[in-house]
Every structure is written in structure tokens, then in C-alpha cells.
């Protein structure tokens, strides 16, 4: 008689496809997944604790290190939360600049999501093309903030500096080229037969489950829930722009992936509109009048924005001193990872990678 038994495979923390230092304990029956145990925390730096010993402005660089692929969005969430706490109105010009850079950040993050997803499925060329566009965005971020990934560009009360002159031609060129680039991804990755065979019907996440488990971002919308905070509860000046929220149907890996592709097109639309409106504005300050030493009144605030990976929330408690009493960050990747086990059960090892890639996590954010 043959005796079979399950075995465990320790995938990560050093593994090419876990997007960083995620460790997955796979319980396998042959190649079929019985159970997945995600083990996180290898990149835990205690940012929430560190923030308690920093002034309000000094926390901004730490938010860069959360989702380092979309650092602008992380900045935005934090500074908006503190502004809400202090009741600061920021100048119009800064609002527009914030929208432009954060949507650029979203595109950059989705470029990585799409590219690495192709790589996870074994298509190396699909990885290179989105990175080409991301590189252009990185160059523009460097023009704006002097840094490619950890910008720390936003300040409480506005942004650090106005957009430089050379930024305008660069972004215009980018905006002109970008739609055809997305068409290229569609042709190279989305339309590929093998890619579709690998992703369609895999790792289905039902609408009810997604809502119950607090899933957010493209992962939630891929399941057919139309919940985008930019539309549902507009923050900043998002209500001034005309864009759609792409929604999937079946909630499989392909839908989640395709939501991102479509979101890139929508972000492109937002940037176009914002840039147009920004250029009509007269020049002016990009910082509100805020005191040098920030002392928010006693109180607390919870502010959510739509990050690249999902709902990014900042809970800031002030005790009236110059340092925040408590900063809590609701990190979308962390919560989205929760359901990995259930989505993977019954699929093969290769599908774990496919499903993980379709959730699009970044470990800096998961581990905080």
C-alpha cells in the first residue's frame, strides 16, 4: 500500500516571488495546497512606536517607508490626517500638485504590480515594459522632490516646493505616450493565452467574502464591489475630476489584475485634468500659513484615503504637545493578506504565487 502524507514547504522569507520578506508556510499534498500560513513581521520596524517620539513633521519620512512603491500616497494620507486634526486649509495650488503627484504614484505602483505579476507568472518581458514607464515617473519624482522613491514631498499645510519648470514638458510627454504604453501591456500580458489560462478563474474571491474580510483597493473592486474612496467619500479635491471606477466581475486573479490596468488609464485621466486646471491657476504659495512648531489641539482623527493597494488609514491622537500621542496606520496590504489562505486552498504551488501577486502586497507596508 502506498502511504501518502502532507508535507510543509517553507516558502520565503527569501524567495524570488514573495515580493520581499514574506514567509509562507505551505502545507502541501503533492503540489496541491492544503493550507497556507502567512508569517509576517520580518520587516517590522515599529514605525507606529517611532512616530510617538517624533514631531508631527518628522513622521512624514517614516510614511515613505511604508508602501515605498507609492510613497506620495502615504505622505498624502498622513498630512491630510494631521491637517484635519488641526483644521488647516491648504492652498489651491498645493491641492492640485498633491493630486498630480499622488496619481503619478498610483500609476508607478500599478506599473510594478502589473510588471511583477507578469514576472510571477514567468513572463520576464512583461516585467520590463511597465518598468520602463515607471522609470520615467521616477525621473519626474526626482525633479520634484530630489528623490526617486522616498520623496517626503508633502508637508503639513501643503507641499515642500512648487513644481519645477522642467516638470511640465516631462509630464506632458509622459501623458501623451502613456495610453499607448498601456495598450502595449494589454497586448503583451493581458491578451496572452497562457496568461489568461493562468489567471482566469483562479483564486476567486466572492463579493461577500471580500467585504466581510475588510479587503480593499483593486483587490476588492476586482470582486465587483464599487468602493473607491475617491468617489465614495472624496477627500482633497477629487470631486472636481471626472473619472470612473473600474470594477471586475468574477473576482478572480485576472479581474484584480485588469482592474489595475484600467485604473492606470483612469489615473492618467485625472492627471490630465488636474494639470490643465493647475495651469489655469495663478502662481501662488504652495504652503498654508502654519506655525513652525506644530501643536495640534487635543483630540484624535481618523482619515482614510484610497492608496494604491487599498484603503490607507491614519489614526492620529494628539495630546496637545508637539509629538503625536499615538499614530496608527491602517495598511491595506496587511489586511488584504489575511485572506490568502482561503483563496489558495486547493490550488497548486504556482497559483499561490499568482494569487499573491494579484493581491499586490508590499512588505514595507505589511510589516510596518
Amino acid at each position, binding site marked *: 500500500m502506498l502511504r501518502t502524507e502532507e508535507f510543509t514547504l517553507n516558502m520565503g522569507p527569501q524567495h524570488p516571488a514573495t515580493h520581499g520578506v514574506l514567509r509562507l508556510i505551505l502545507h502541501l499534498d503533492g503540489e496541491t495546497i492544503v493550507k497556507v500560513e502567512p508569517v*509576517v*513581521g520580518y520587516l*517590522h520596524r*515599529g514605525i*507606529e*512606536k517611532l512616530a510617538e517620539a517624533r514631531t508631527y513633521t518628522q513622521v512624514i519620512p517614516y510614511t515613505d517607508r511604508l508602501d515605498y512603491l507609492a510613497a506620495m500616497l502615504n505622505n498624502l494620507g498622513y498630512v491630510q490626517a494631521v491637517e484635519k486634526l488641526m483644521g488647516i486649509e491648504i492652498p489651491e495650488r498645493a491641492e492640485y500638485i498633491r493630486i498630480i503627484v499622488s496619481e503619478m504614484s498610483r500609476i508607478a505602483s500599478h506599473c510594478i504590480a502589473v510588471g511583477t505579476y507578469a514576472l510571477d507568472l514567468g513572463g520576464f518581458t512583461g516585467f520590463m515594459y511597465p518598468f520602463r514607464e515607471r522609470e520615467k515617473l521616477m525621473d519626474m519624482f526626482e525633479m520634484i522632490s530630489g528623490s526617486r522613491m522616498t520623496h517626503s514631498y508633502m508637508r503639513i499645510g501643503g507641499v515642500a516646493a512648487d513644481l519645477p519648470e522642467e516638470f511640465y514638458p516631462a509630464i506632458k510627454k509622459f501623458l501623451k505616450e502613456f495610453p499607448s504604453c498601456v495598450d502595449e501591456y494589454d497586448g503583451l500580458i493581458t491578451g496572452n493565452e497562457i496568461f489568461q489560462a493562468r489567471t482566469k478563474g483562479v483564486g476567486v474571491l466572492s463579493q461577500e467574502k471580500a*467585504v*466581510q*474580510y*475588510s*479587503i*480593499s483597493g483593486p483587490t476588492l473592486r476586482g470582486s465587483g*464591489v*464599487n*468602493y473607491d*474612496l475617491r*468617489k*465614495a*467619500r472624496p477627500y482633497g479635491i477629487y470631486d472636481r475630476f471626472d473619472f470612473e471606477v473600474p470594477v471586475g466581475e468574477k473576482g478572480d486573479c485576472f479581474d484584480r489584475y485588469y482592474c489595475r490596468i484600467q485604473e492606470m488609464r483612469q489615473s492618467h485621466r485625472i492627471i490630465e485634468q488636474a494639470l490643465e486646471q493647475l495651469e489655469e491657476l495663478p502662481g501662488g504659495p504652495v504652503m498654508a500659513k502654519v506655525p513652525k512648531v506644530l501643536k495640534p489641539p487635543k*483630540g484624535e482623527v*481618523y482619515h*482614510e484615503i484610497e492608496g494604491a493597494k487599498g*484603503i490607507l*488609514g491614519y*489614526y492620529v*491622537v494628539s495630546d496637545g504637545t508637539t509629538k503625536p*500621542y*499615538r499614530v*496608527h496606520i*491602517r495598511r491595506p496590504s*496587511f*489586511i488584504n*493578506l*489575511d485572506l490568502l489562505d482561503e483563496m489558495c486552498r486547493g490550488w497548486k504551488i504556482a497559483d499561490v504565487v499568482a494569487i499573491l501577486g494579484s493581491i499586490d502586497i508590499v512588505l514595507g507596508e505589511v*510589516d*510596518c
Partner: protein
Amino acid sequence: MESNKVAEQLQEYFQSIGNNRKVLTVSPDELIPLMYRLRDEYEFNYLTDETAVDYGDYFEVIYNLSRVPQGDILMVKTKVDKEKAEVPSVFEVWPGAIWFEREIFDLLGIKFTNHPDLRRILLDDSFEGHPLRKDFQWVGGREV
């Protein structure tokens, strides 16, 4: 927002319910029934965030609930004793709470009763103490 409305309407069912600056407050004993009501009657079907704060002599556990896809948000708070840091888990109402609560347990040491898998999540299993507590002292630097 609507926290005062909810508080008024539910006054007769929950003794401890209160409304303090747009935040619904409730005692831990009545938390779970309230949460069920909020989910079923008020359609707060989405737990956006759950966290806790150490206020020295007591903890506050904060729940942020949302309506999906309308996008309304409601904050619910409950006060927990420092000595007996125990709250019932809202896992049965929103299964998504499972990792939120593991994180709170890990960093603040609040026990969630009826939680199916209450282990440390971010820190090492052998770590002692809960770093986000205000009385946490990090002694020494590196291991000797």
C-alpha cells in the same frame, strides 16, 4: 455625523452607549450585541479599521465601521481596564478583524476573547512585552 442619531435610537437597548464628539462609545460587555445591530440594522457591513490606544490607566479600542459602497464611516470606541485587558473579539461579526486583533494583541497586549487565532503577528514569538504600551521600556540595545 450620525453617531448621535445611532446613540439616541439605541439608548433603550444599551445602557452604556454614549456619544462623545462624533464617536459612539460603549462598554465591552455590550460591544458584540451593538456591533451586530450596527451591521444588520444600520448596514455597517465593513470594518475599515480596528486599533487601540494606551491612555496610561486604561486602553481604548477603536473600531471604524463603513458602509460599502456608500462610504459612510462611524467610529465606535470601548474602554478597557489596564489590569484586565480583555475585549470580546468582533471576529464573529466581521471576520476581517482577525488580523487587526492579532496586531493589537501583539503590540498592546489586549486579549480578545473568542478570537480563533490569537498569536503574535509582527513581533517574534519569544518577544517579551508589548511595545506600544506607554510603560514599555526597551532595555539595552543588542543582545549580549
